[in-house]
């Protein structure tokens, strides 16, 4: 009897390892950002709209905000646009846009046609700021605390569900459910 115990135990262990692996499988595509919990990278970009102030860390200080990296060339960005407009209507955080390697005129007409969810949009023509933020696939969204720390990150299209399940709880935990 005991001679079967060891192989059986080894098999049971293997099953546990595989089940844990399978359960985490959907997260495997997402590469954890080393920036979470750290201060948002220093940046300063020209405003997409002429005559408006530069867009940089000053825009993030002292309040919760959502930084969204997008571009008119990015297919998924169109898919998430509705969700960004939803977050704007909800009015809990301002959205700061980083227009990644894009053409200004295209970006302006895109916002004119689809609606503008952004409080301010900075233009990252050469993609340097995106690299500092560790961006590898637009759209990407970062939740920034009032202290300027990156609290949460989403790679891929934002949806109202993800916003409510992954992002809002951070605000609620910090401010309290009555504060929002």
């Amino acid at each position: 009897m005991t001679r079967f115990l060891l192989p059986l135990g080894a098999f049971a262990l293997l099953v546990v390892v595989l089940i844990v692996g399978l359960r985490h499988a959907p997260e495997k595509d997402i590469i954890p950002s080393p920036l979470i919990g750290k201060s948002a990278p220093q940046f300063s970009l020209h405003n997409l709209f002429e005559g408006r102030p530069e867009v940089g860390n000053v825009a993030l200080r002292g309040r919760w905000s959502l930084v969204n990296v997008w571009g008119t060339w990015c297919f998924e960005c169109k898919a998430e646009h509705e969700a960004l407009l939803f977050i704007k209507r909800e009015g809990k955080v301002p959205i700061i846009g980083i227009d990644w390697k894009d053409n200004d005129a295209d970006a302006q007409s895109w916002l004119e046609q689809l609606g503008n969810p952004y409080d301010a949009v900075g233009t990252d023509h050469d993609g340097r700021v995106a690299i500092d933020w560790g961006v590898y696939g637009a759209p990407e969204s970062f939740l920034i605390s009032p202290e300027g720390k990156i609290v949460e990150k989403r790679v891929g299209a934002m949806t109202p569900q993800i916003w409510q399940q992954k992002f809002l709880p951070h605000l609620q935990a910090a401010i309290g459910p009555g504060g929002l």
Partner: protein
Amino acid sequence: MLPTALCAWVALMLALPAYAVDNVPPLPNAQLQQRYYQLTHELRCMQCQNEALADSPVGLAADLRLQVRELLIAGQTDEQIRQHMVDRYGEFILFRPRMSWRNAWLWGAPVVLMLLGVMVAWRVIRSRSQLVDAEEADPNAESLNS
């Protein structure tokens, strides 16, 4: 009949030159170029994930190659440049993962499994050889053979 040599010459003239993916301007000296070559081959393209920075036609890879070039010219060491990338994209960007306490078990597991295997094999061999000894010592077993 058209001479073969002429045909070959025409074909050669019509052939399009092969374009390299990497369009980053060359570095000022061979030593830096060599380091650039090595770094862009051991850093991962984050968008395609199984390609090296050097081989990827993706826009982000081109931007990162340009940054590697700039950091090399700025006089940073290979390790500083690797760290620059890891700070932004995490260790995933390195094709050769670093040793750390978090992944130590991964490096140690083969050694542990090997030792375990040797121990099991040792015990099996010993118990089997004892079985043979016992058989030889048994006079009844001998009579059966003859």
